[in-house]
């Protein structure tokens, strides 16, 4: 069975600081993608970053970067220079083998002024 686990229900970080959100996953597929989505109070899901499993290089998007550890099945998200607008729920998701995404239960991040 494919699973995605986010073990941090809530986190907080001071504005301008760095924070890392954790995600572990399990799949028997060799070809898969991993995603981080952000859900602000408006509740629309917004893609933050995507990582293809066959790529060894960690994906980056401006202040967002991932630490992809394939052997450990770990996929953490690092947010640098945190901004108040980063306050949101963050979901880790796995896509492998089918059209079905498996989502984690989310981490609620609060950026403090």
């Amino acid at each position: 069975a494919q699973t995605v686990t986010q073990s941090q229900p809530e986190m907080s970080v001071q504005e301008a600081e760095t924070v890392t959100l954790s995600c572990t996953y399990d799949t028997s597929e060799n070809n898969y993608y991993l995603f981080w989505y952000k859900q602000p109070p408006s509740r629309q899901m917004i893609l933050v970053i995507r990582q293809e499993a066959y790529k060894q290089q960690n994906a980056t998007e401006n202040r967002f970067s991932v630490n992809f550890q394939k052997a450990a099945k770990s996929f953490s998200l690092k947010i640098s220079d945190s901004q108040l607008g980063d306050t949101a729920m963050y979901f880790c998701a796995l896509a492998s083998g089918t059209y079905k995404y498996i989502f984690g239960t989310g981490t609620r991040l609060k950026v403090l002024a």
Partner: protein
Amino acid sequence: SQTIHQWPATLVQPVGSPLSLECTVEGTSNPNLYWYRQAAGRGLQLLFYSVGIGQISSEVPQNLSASRPQDRQFILSSKKLLLSDSGFYLCAWSVLGGLETQYFGPGTRLLVL
């Protein structure tokens, strides 16, 4: 560029009433389309996906159904709503294929009383 629309944005319905939620995508052809439900404070659950007109796959047995009458239109329906149908419903699209990024609409908040 591609955009995805959902309506209504908010809906309050009595138990036993019918339901129709609509999702349309602009700026792309032959998309994969998805319906998700998000219960309060929880992750996303895939309800239905479609790879073409009239082609619907159901992930979770329930009193909901989906239809795709046009290439870029996806409808979620129910003949009789249950209290447990309350939640936040998200439509998403992706480029035709398996491991593709999904892009989400703004969602519909459904409250069944």
